[in-house]
């Protein structure tokens, strides 16, 4: 029981760290993408552990799905990043303010 709780804690902590990594980071968009990946990992870790705990296969199926989604997402994200870099020659987050309110 204790292990389960600590493992859920670990996955939550990972999730939290990744969130903080997203919005505390002002400079680098790559770090943001990596945090995003980390978020997916934390979620799939959580799912896998809960599937083990509950003795159910659905969690693992979901985590596999998430892995593919995360892979697709990061490839699209990197593609956008590349397009963006080709246009503007830089990837600094704090200068992406072309759509101001």
């Amino acid at each position, binding site marked *: 029981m204790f292990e389960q709780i600590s493992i859920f804690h670990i996955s939550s902590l990972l999730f939290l760290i990744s*969130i903080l990594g*997203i*919005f*505390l*980071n*002002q400079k680098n968009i790559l770090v*943001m993408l990596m945090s995003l990946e980390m978020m997916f990992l934390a979620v799939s870790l959580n799912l896998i552990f809960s599937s083990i705990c509950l003795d159910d296969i659905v969690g693992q199926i979901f985590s596999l799905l998430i892995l593919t989604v995360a892979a697709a997402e990061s490839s699209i994200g990197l593609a956008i990043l590349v397009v963006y870099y080709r246009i503007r020659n830089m990837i600094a*987050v*704090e200068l*992406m*303010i*072309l*759509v*101001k*309110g």
Partner: protein
Amino acid sequence: MYLLILVLPFLGSIFTGLGGRWLGYYGASIFSTSCVLISMTLSFFAFYEVGVSGTVCYLSLSPWINSETLYVNWGFLFDSLTVSMLLVVTIISSLVHIYSINYMENDPHFSRFMAFLEIFTFFMLILVTSDNLAQMFVGWEGVGLASYLLINFWFTRLAANQSAIKALIVNRIGDFGLSLGIFTTFYTFNSLDYLTIFSLVPLLLNEYLIFAGFQVHNITLIGLFLFIGAIGKSAQLGLHTWLPDAMEGPTPVSALIHAATMVTAGVFLVIRFSPLIEFSSIVLTVMIIFGSLTAFFASMSGVFQNDLKRVIAYSTCSQLGYMIFSCGMSSYNVSIFHLSNHAFFKALLFLGAGSIIHSMADEQDMRRMGSLIKFLPVTYSVMLIGSLALVGFPFLAGFYSKDFIIELSQVLANPNLNNVNGAFACWLGSMTVFFTSFYSFRLIYLTFLNSTNTNRVILADVHESSIFILFPLIILGIGSIFVGYFTKDLFIGLGTNFWNSAIFILPSHSNFIEAEWLGTLVKWLPFIMSSLGIFLISIINLLTNYLYLFSKFNILFAFLINKKWYWDIIYNRFLVYPILNFGYLVTFKNLDRGFIELSGPYGFSKLIPTWSEIISRLQTGQITHYLFFIVLGLCSFSGVLGGISFNFNLICFYLVLMFFI
């Protein structure tokens, strides 16, 4: 026949007013005058039938308002009071019509003038003949409207506009009181018909209205409200300011409205409600006090006026005071007797003044006249007759009515009766006689007898007017001499049954017999006072012109009275302007355009751009900021739902807090 008396002036007004273009000057004058003349002839017949033969006529045409207990008919009641007023109104009106044919000859809007005169006559007839309060109110308001139109006849003149508006508004204050009176009457009696009201009065003597913890006697309340109406219309002290200003209208208008008819409507109302007012001693007292104060104040103001018509207007005001306080002394028949006599000599004075003004190239200032006796002998003689009748010279019209009013007040002033109001009215009334004769003969001296003050160009052209102006003057002059003598026994003779039930006087209030047995000196008193007035003004004018000018106090006093005791200024400065300022600054600028608009459309239209600016400033374009908001939203949502579960007030507080951040 009875309805024809009313219909004819109406038709005359409609046709001369709408068809004046086709009728032309001659058509309008002949048509309108003949309508009123026929109406006058018919009212003579009506007077004979109703007054002399004693057959009261009551016509009910059709229902007007019929709702639950409120049942108002178009009904016409011709009793002796009505036919007396009918005769006065139609005679004066037809003479004024004849007079206007010549007086307004060169006016381009002649047919409009005739139409206004006729519609005024029509509404006056509606007022006097109606059998219920609602219909009477139609005539009452119609007369006010017609007076506005007539005073404002020369609408290009600023003074005429102002005084017409003043007349209408001051009258409207009285009308407010009258309409309250009508509502109270309906509340008390559940009916507006005169006959129902008057027969129910003794039954409802102990009815009280509880208002804000006070017990108000219903009958007294109705009487007071009706009297407020009379104050407005009959120019009693307090609401009298419109009457002298109304002299801005053409002179025939002054003669018709402000001498004979409209201002007497208030007195007529009081006399008509004698069966109700008799039962309330408070109303009677109020009427005595207001009436005698008005008589005294107006006659005193008349002494120092320099405008020819204004002197006569104040004289009217003062005579109306007499009528009202004689109503207050419960001698209503004397009041209407004085009303009919007064109509004759006051119309005579006004029309005579019009004749003078007409021949003097429209000069109204008495100080620029003089020695007109050589040029206008006919006008002089009729003006002299009118003035003598006004001051109550023996055997002329005023003698029979005015002196009798003072004798009645002498009865009430008797110490044995212990009647303070009577003594008050007696003293003021007797002093008024003095002032009346003083200003009447001041007018005669300044216009006719003193040496002239006008220039040669005008004086060379002074001549008597045509027969259309002189004929009404002569008829009215004959009337002023004889009408008092002829109708004395009919109207106020002891034991006359002329009034039947039209006027009701409580037996305990009747002083007619006592008035016949007053002491000789007391009976001579009005004559002595008026002779004294004539004597004094003769001395001042004939012997020396400087005697009364020396004292500083005299000059101040004369200035004060010449400015009409500053009534107008007091009203303007302490009522009109503060109310106007309040209306502009407080209700308009602060409330209407200020507070209400701020919380309404104007406030919203200012608020929404501000908010939208604040909200659009949140859109920085920085991705990290958006992410921060997402996370913040998540945190606060989970915090609100999980941490502070179901504390509704706190949630609201957080929401409002977020809104303002």
